[in-house]
């Protein structure tokens, strides 16, 4: 049915009448209303999708050169670095791209935490984001195994052994993951297969994440909904231009590491071929796993009937899974920390707590580092389970502006915090 289509070009019109991709693109990326008050922290979603594309493209090219076999994997990566045309470039982009992906996504997440982007009606949007994070972690972990260096091998051994903490079936699961009795050729091959598969699953979930975003629209620094055209600007050209600025700056940052500090995020030990008979003296995961690694190691005694090993694993997975229920743990009536005088500080305390966990994760598990790690772990969970629910009840939010277009409420008339907060709930 041709509904008086807006397209003049007959070919576009013909296609659009049958498959409305042009109308869809126009609707979702041209006319799509964006809050006019977004700051540059709203760039990071676009940046993450750019990194995903860069990773897939370089990854496909690298896969053409890589050999997933314990005898050849290490040398095939060195062949890529030395003999393949621009192989060094592709490998460095892919290797640093992993770190860039996590930098961008972590900033994206902290943005969400600060401005309350996970709160109603965006709970599913946030939960899909947590799924994306989990998929990213699995993909990154398996990708790190492929070069078959010492850290690859021992990282794979340690992480797969986490599953042995599961009561009764743990050892069976670990053997299943390995396809043998240690990390070996079968493990490398399945990790390669899954490392290639996962990004496409990731793509699908990113698609859902974007669909959910386009239903509820972007949150914004004020954390109040758009009330009309005066509050919004069309996505194009305003946010194509603004996102492009972010992309330019980000590519500078990315390129600096690729060209001038390609091994900054890496470990020298991974330039030694995997040796199943010798563990490196100090094994650490990639930096983006450090906070979780610190939580894993912080449990040193059995708690009640739960062995320390199992508890560590549960807490580590719990530290991510708890994000799924964050939308219901946060009881505050307003979204943005801008209007939450206490949460504003709590947020930064939580941020520092995460950094501290990351530092602890990079240190040997002993002495002061261990104690700091335990305190930081307790606080991490307390933040979600105690601080967020209680703070929302006792904190008095600042008065919200009546609309995005008028960020200053002027005379400070009737709009009490409570009333403004109630308004927020209306779509």
């Amino acid at each position, binding site marked *: 049915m041709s509904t008086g289509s807006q397209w003049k070009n007959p070919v576009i019109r013909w296609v659009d009448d049958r498959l409305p991709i042009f109308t869809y693109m126009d609707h979702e990326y041209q006319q799509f209303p964006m809050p006019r008050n977004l700051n540059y922290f709203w760039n990071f979603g676009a940046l993450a999708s750019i990194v995903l594309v860069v990773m897939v493209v370089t990854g496909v*090219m690298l896969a053409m050169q890589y050999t997933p076999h314990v005898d050849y994997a290490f040398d095939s990566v060195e*062949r890529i670095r030395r003999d393949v045309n*621009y192989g060094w470039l592709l490998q460095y982009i892919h290797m640093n791209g992993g770190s860039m992906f996590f930098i961008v996504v972590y900033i994206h997440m902290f943005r969400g935490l600060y401005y309350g982007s996970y709160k109603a009606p965006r709970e599913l949007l946030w939960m899909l984001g947590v799924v994306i994070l989990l998929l990213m972690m699995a993909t990154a972990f398996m990708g790190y195994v492929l070069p078959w260096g010492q850290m690859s091998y021992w990282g794979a051994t340690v992480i797969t052994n986490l599953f042995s903490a599961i009561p009764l079936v743990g050892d069976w699961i670990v053997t299943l993951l390995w396809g043998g009795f240690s990390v070996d050729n079968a493990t490398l091959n399945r990790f390669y297969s899954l490392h290639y598969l996962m990004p496409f699953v990731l793509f699908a979930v990113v698609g859902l994440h974007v669909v959910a975003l386009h239903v509820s629209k972007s949150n914004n620094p004020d954390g109040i909904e758009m009330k009309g055209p005066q509050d919004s600007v069309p996505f194009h050209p305003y946010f194509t231009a603004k996102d492009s600025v972010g992309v330019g700056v980000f590519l500078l940052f990315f390129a600096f590491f690729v060209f001038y500090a390609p091994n900054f995020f890496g470990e020298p030990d991974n330039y030694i071929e995997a040796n199943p008979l010798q563990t490196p003296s100090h094994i650490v995961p990639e930096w983006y796993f450090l906070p979780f690694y610190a939580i894993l190691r912080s449990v040193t005694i059995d708690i009640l009937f739960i062995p320390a090993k199992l508890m560590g694993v549960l807490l580590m997975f719990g530290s991510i899974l708890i994000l799924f229920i964050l939308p219901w743990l946060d009881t505050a009536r307003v979204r943005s920390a801008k209007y939450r005088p206490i949460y504003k500080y709590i947020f930064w305390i939580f941020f520092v707590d995460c950094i501290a966990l990351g530092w602890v994760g990079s240190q040997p598990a002993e002495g002061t580092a261990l104690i700091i790690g335990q305190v930081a772990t307790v606080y991490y969970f307390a933040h979600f389970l105690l601080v967020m629910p209680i703070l929302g009840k006792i904190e008095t939010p600042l008065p919200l502006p009546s609309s995005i277009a008028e960020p200053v409420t002027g005379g400070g008339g009737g709009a009490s915090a409570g009333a403004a907060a109630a308004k927020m709930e209306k779509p």
Partner: protein
Amino acid sequence: MADTAASPESGDEDAGRRDFLILAAGAMGVVGAASFAWPLIDSMNPSAEVLALSTVDVDLDPIQEGQSITIVWQGKPVFVRRRTKAEIEQALKDDSAELRDPEKDGDRAQKPDWLVMIGLCTHLGCIPLGQKSTDPKGEFGGWFCPCHGSHYDTAGRIRKGPAPKNLPLPPYKFVDDKTILIG
């Protein structure tokens, strides 16, 4: 279409400058994307260690008259045949025959005794028979491609069948009387 959403009230000069900026940024974006695409594409070209293997020395000493050997050069079979007097004569005689891809025997063999060719049929890339003494050699006493029935003569020229060209010659040179360097 792209700029219709921008405000109409800005002056013409302003709009012109904006258009120029957008055009310049767009052009740079295209150049950047293309520059990024090149390393991706070039990574599929032969790598350094493959190119390093692109020459092969062949010792001719053990090959008797009427014998052929097949060696691998760049992953392709190369036929090296020490031709008999009769084959050379036949090849010279056929210089004046009607040829699909006319070439003199003298242009195909640097030394008449030695014929060096890439052993891939110019039709669709099968390896013609004729290297072993027991192989069928086709109607012209040279090589015969079993896939689609192309016949090559004693100088490797196409004489009958679907193939369009003579068997191609690799670049080679005689290092000395007993050795050739292919590639």
